[in-house]
């Protein structure tokens, strides 16, 4: 086991070293977004226009926080973590994506009905219907983490 880990670490280091020669020379993104934003979901393209988000080859419109983006952000999160990180600390994501959480996001953010929650208060009743219709949608968040509470009934 530890040998394997060592091997992985060594090859990772080696890969990084050889990578030095082929690393992009471009400056990193600002670690915090230079402009302070107002309340609510930002529409990037309103301020930025149609150019690409620096070196990402995507337009700002691709990251506009539309209803569709907020509901389905997995691919952008996976490809543009450096962009997301300029505005979001990981704790922002953890409200919905923590491996072990203590209350539903809708309770923690009970004063924010405008936010897009995976489910709302009192879900213990409704989940018996929605879970039956589509359990695969629950697996992302409850399949390998955040399921200690579920196992009280789902043994």
């Amino acid at each position, binding site marked *: *086991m530890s040998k*394997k*880990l060592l091997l*992985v670490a060594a090859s990772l280091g080696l890969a*990084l070293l050889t*990578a030095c020669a082929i*690393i992009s020379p*471009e400056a990193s993104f600002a670690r*915090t*977004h230079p402009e*302070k934003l107002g309340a*609510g979901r*930002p529409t990037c393209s309103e301020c930025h226009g149609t150019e*690409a988000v620096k*070196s990402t*080859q*995507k*337009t700002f419109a*691709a990251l506009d926080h539309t209803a*569709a983006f907020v509901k*389905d952000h*997995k*691919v*952008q999160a*996976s490809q543009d*973590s450096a962009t997301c990180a300029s*505005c*979001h*600390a990981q*704790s*922002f994501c*953890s409200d919905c*994506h923590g*491996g*072990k959480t*203590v*209350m539903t996001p809708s309770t*923690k953010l*009970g*004063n924010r*009905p*405008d936010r897009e929650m995976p489910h709302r208060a*009192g879900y*213990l*009743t*409704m989940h018996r*219907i929605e879970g039956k*219709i*589509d*359990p*695969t949608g629950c*697996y*992302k968040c409850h399949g*390998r*983490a955040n*399921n*200690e*509470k579920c*196992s009280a009934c789902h*043994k």
Partner: protein
Amino acid sequence: MKHRTHVALLAVLVSGAAWGQDVSVYSTTIAQMWKSDIPGFDKTATYTPATEFLGIDANKLGTDALSLHLYGWGRTDLKDQSAIGGKTAGDLTYGYLQYAFDRANAQVKAGRFTINQGVGNEMVDGVYAYTDLLDGWNVTAFAGKPVVYKNLGNVPQASISFQRDYTFGTRLGYRIKRMGEIGLSYLQDGSTPAMDLPIPETLDFTRRQLGADLSLAPCSFIDVTGRTVFDVSRRQQAEHSTRIAESDYRVGVKIMDGLRFNGSFTDRDFLYYYTGSTLPNLFDMNERGKFKAVGGNLTWTAVANLQLVADVRRTNRDEYGTATRAGLDARYNLAAQHVLAGVGYHKVNAFNVALVDSTTPSHSLSHSEARAWVMAERGAFSASLDAIRLHYSGASTNPNLIGKSIESQLVGSVGYQANEGLKVSADLSYADTPLYKKQAMGLVRIEYRFGFAAKGGK
């Protein structure tokens, strides 16, 4: 765990403060109170958990590039025990050191962190590295021990921890000029699958997955995003199956200014999609067939302040049947008056679940959901109201609903922003549900932040 978490958080708080300038601390303290009216449970119990969420970002540790990030929570029940497992609980959600280079977005993280790269959506105790390469390429790699959560079910905890001894993942991305990005990723979680153990076990918690993701905009009015995940473990294969765990794609079309259409397509194969579940009795790999869904929504920004979304989604769970969810949402933003409001209505036409016993041959899962909410701010004061009403069609025959077809919930909140760093709010929620009957809950929330590195979203 809990003890260590608190000590770690405290240690950093103290040492972080010593670094001076560039430390931000954000804390949310939540005190709740409710009494419960679940049939069969103790009605005299009063639950009063107090929960603390604490985050610390300490930047410029010696060099501009080095920073430390911590986030965790702890809960204590002041009266009756509110959750299984004990009167106190806590967790270190993440805690890592980060070294961010000033070119190529290159960064290295070490510690506990979440990774979202291709197929890897993991919590890891280990190391992570990312960099942009020349000519549009970029590469990610991580390795370490997966964060394994204690599971209270009848799944053997020791075999979960034993099988998932280390995890490793990588993604290679390529950016196409003025088009977007495509990527290929690999994830391995655990070194020894259950069947290769000296004494083979039946439940396998390991995973080996390969993924392809894309986000492309071939012209200014069309964009496609999505991913496909393949299971590449040596686990037995179902007949005629392709080993595709998931395909999930969305196509966006800009019809005209202010009008957009999104179409989506999802296909999941239980046998591969549920690999590695720590709740295998609920997420059952052996369920016959697949889950499939197609959907579409139309977003219309009617006037600058008003957004309308019409959506429909048809899902199919082979073993049970199909369900269609359709509805409308409207969102109204009066920025000048600091008022934001929304309404929505959805109807779900779903299959019947067959035979519970001879008196209730089947029950329908059809239901409808209506919601209205409003948020307003005036100076330092804020207030919000959220009302939800559900109507279950199959209530009289569904053993999980105890004969009641209406569920209603109301959450009201008032807040006061004392100064830039301190906000206090109080919520009162009321629910009348088939399961809980009537339940009222009070909550007080104190949000405190200190420091300069305020993030846009948070």
